[in-house]
Structure formats: structure tokens, C-alpha cells
């Protein structure tokens, strides 16, 4: 954030203090724009100069943690991943992600999203509980099998897709693109055997059937994930399953233990410099 200020930009921020404000309102703050400044940097500057009570979520500052999803100039984006210069405007309007209740200022209540996510069991479901609890080897998976779900595994659960989805906006029963995309990510993982269990949830009213394929979720995803595609593939899988046409496969088996000669010239770990308890 160092550098000579280029100009002044106005942060047009949605403020809401529960218990104090009856409704959210907008407030303007002028800050000096420096080269490379992101919206997140700008929020820190506003907090430093004018609004110490301003609240938002952020953590990694590098588009990995998914904490700082916000509505920036009308589009859900990551504040840390959006440079003010790329907005091509002297006014930066920042609000909390739509389609969620507001906890405070720019902090949305993401609990409904994570509850739907949890309900769809976003983890490997297998019958070998002992192996999963105490792994002895890896599950075997080919690069081709990895390609089936790889792009969906880039999801950082920022909620931008949920904020952009017109169906989430109108139907509270709909699970939404993030949970559905992640359910498909595990359903299409060759190591997983949980399709039948997830199907119980997905075949009902909260499943992918309400999706209008507007595609906004894929447009706004900051990680380039295509949840709309995941939802269409999921529909295909579920319908083929209903018609008994879905190819069933056993989950990936354990990989063979590596065999060969153990190298003896591997350098030893350095001596500990800190001794802990």
C-alpha cells in the first residue's frame, strides 16, 4: 500500500449496526488511492482514517481463504483480489453479500450456506471407516479421474456464487451453487462412495431442480470454478440414476504400498533449535 497517492477515491459503504440502526444505510468516506491498492486495503484505510467501528471479514489477503466476499460496485467479488484501479471508477460502492442476513456492516451471516453445505456431506464417504480413521496407504486415483472434479475442488466457499444466484434470492429451500457444486465435487470423486447418501438430499426440494441455469454463479466465481456446470452434471447423474442408466463403480481401492530399495543417503532432519513441551 506504499506509494504516492494518485488521487482521492470515495468509498460508498453499506453500514449497519445491529441494535442501533433500524435499517442498513450508505455512508461515504474519501481516502487517498495508492498504486496497487485493493478494495481490502481501502477498507483498512477507511477504518484507520474515518470509521474505526467498520466491520468486515478478511484473513489471508491473497484470494485463498474466501473470507472477504463482498458486493463491490454491484458485483460479488473478493475485496483482497480486486484492485480499485480495475473498477475504473472514483466511487467504490461496497456492501455485504446479497442473499444473506447482515450481522454487521459488511459481514454477512453465512450460516445458511454452511448448513446446506454440511447437509450434503462434503467429504469422502466410504465403507472402510477403519482405514479412514487410521490410514495405512493412499487411495489410488488416476490423473484422468482427478480431472473429473479438480476444478470444483478450487472452491474457497466465499459465498460470491450464492450472492449472485437469482434462485437463492427467491427460494430459501434451494441449497445454492456452492453446496451443490461441492456435493458434485465429491460425487464425481473416484474415491467416494457416497452418491446414494447424498442423493437422498439432492433428490428433494433443496436439490438442483430449482436451478434456472442463469450461470451468474460461474460468472462471479473468483476462482474460476463453474458451479453451474457442476449443477447440470449433477442433474444428469441423478436422472440417469433414476432411469437405472448411471454407471456404478466401486470406490477407488487402496494403492499398493511402494516397493523398492530404501535410499540411505537422505539427509537427516536438522537438530531442533527449540524444545517445546
Amino acid at each position, binding site marked *: 500500500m506504499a506509494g504516492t497517492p494518485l488521487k482521492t477515491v470515495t468509498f460508498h459503504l453499506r453500514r449497519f449496526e445491529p441494535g442501533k440502526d433500524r435499517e442498513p444505510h450508505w455512508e461515504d468516506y474519501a481516502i487517498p488511492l495508492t498504486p496497487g491498492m485493493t478494495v481490502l486495503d481501502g477498507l483498512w484505510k477507511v477504518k484507520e482514517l474515518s470509521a474505526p467501528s467498520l466491520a468486515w471479514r478478511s484473513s489471508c489477503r491473497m484470494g485463498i481463504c474466501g473470507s472477504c466476499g463482498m458486493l463491490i460496485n454491484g458485483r460479488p467479488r473478493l475485496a483482497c483480489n480486486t484492485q480499485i484501479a480495475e473498477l475504473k471508477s472514483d466511487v467504490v460502492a461496497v456492501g455485504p453479500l446479497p442473499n444473506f442476513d447482515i450481522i454487521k456492516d459488511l459481514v454477512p451471516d453465512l450460516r445458511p450456506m454452511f448448513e446446506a453445505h454440511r447437509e450434503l456431506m462434503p467429504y469422502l464417504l466410504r465403507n472402510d471407516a477403519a482405514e479412514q480413521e487410521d490410514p495405512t496407504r493412499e487411495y489410488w486415483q488416476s490423473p484422468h479421474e482427478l480431472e473429473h472434479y479438480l476444478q470444483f475442488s478450487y472452491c474457497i466457499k466465499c459465498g460470491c456464487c450464492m450472492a449472485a444466484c437469482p*434462485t437463492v434470492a*427467491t*427460494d*430459501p429451500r434451494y441449497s445454492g451453487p456452492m453446496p451443490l457444486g461441492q456435493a458434485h465435487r465429491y460425487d464425481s470423486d473416484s474415491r467416494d462412495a457416497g452418491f446414494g447418501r447424498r442423493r*437422498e438430499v*439432492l*433428490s*428433494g*426440494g433443496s*436439490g438442483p*431442480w*430449482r436451478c434456472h441455469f442463469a450461470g451468474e454463479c460461474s460468472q462471479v466465481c473468483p476462482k474460476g470454478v463453474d458451479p453451474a456446470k457442476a449443477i447440470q452434471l449433477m*442433474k444428469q447423474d*441423478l*436422472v440417469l440414476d*433414476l*432411469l437405472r442408466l448411471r454407471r456404478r463403480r466401486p470406490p477407488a481401492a487402496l494403492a499398493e504400498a511402494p516397493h523398492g530399495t530404501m535410499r540411505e543417503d537422505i539427509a537427516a532432519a536438522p537438530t531442533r533449535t527449540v524444545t517445546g513441551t
Partner: protein
Amino acid sequence: MRDRTLWTWHIAAGAVILILLGMHMAIMHLNQSLGLFGPEPLAWESVAERATSLFFTVTYVLLLGAALYHGFYGFRNILFELNPGAGLRRTIDVGLSVLGLALFAFGTWAAIAAPGAATMVGG
């Protein structure tokens, strides 16, 4: 489970409509260009001939059923996006089902009764 089944039927009905409506367009509206079904598909004799054909009767009933199901399922989705409560959703389901079945019964009766009517009028 129910939503998956309803949606699957919705897609199947869409495929049926695509084929049968394509046939309808080819016979009724594009015949001047295609010339596949005689010179005057809209003339009374042609209409009466189709009405007495078992193939067309079955086709009409199938198209009616598919179109009603497809349309009413879509309408149900639109109504559900207004976020009605569980009781109202149930009422919508029952109401649309009854209305759809009534329209289907009426249309089916019309398609089946058409040969007799055509014969009577045609003498």
C-alpha cells in the same frame, strides 16, 4: 425423491413436445415450403381426415399431455419462487394437478370425439 422424478418427467415432456410440435409445425404451418402433406393441410377435408386417423388422435393426446405437464410444472416452479408456505405449496400442487388432469380429460375427450363429429358434419 419427488422433485427428481417430477423434473425428469418435465425434461421427457420437453423432448416429446420438441418432436410432436415439430411435426405440427411441419404439417400445419410449413407445408407450403416443405410440401410433404398434400396441397391444403388446413382445408376441412384434410382436418377431418386427420381427425379420423388413429395415429393423429394418439399424437394429439400425447402432445396435449406433454404440453400440459411441461407448462404446469414450469408454472408451479414460478409460483414456488414466490416462497409460499408448506400449506400453500401443497394447495398449489393439488390445484394444478386437478386443473391439469381436468384439461387433459377434456382435451382427450375432444380428440376422441373428433372422428364422430367430423363424420357427422361431413355427412
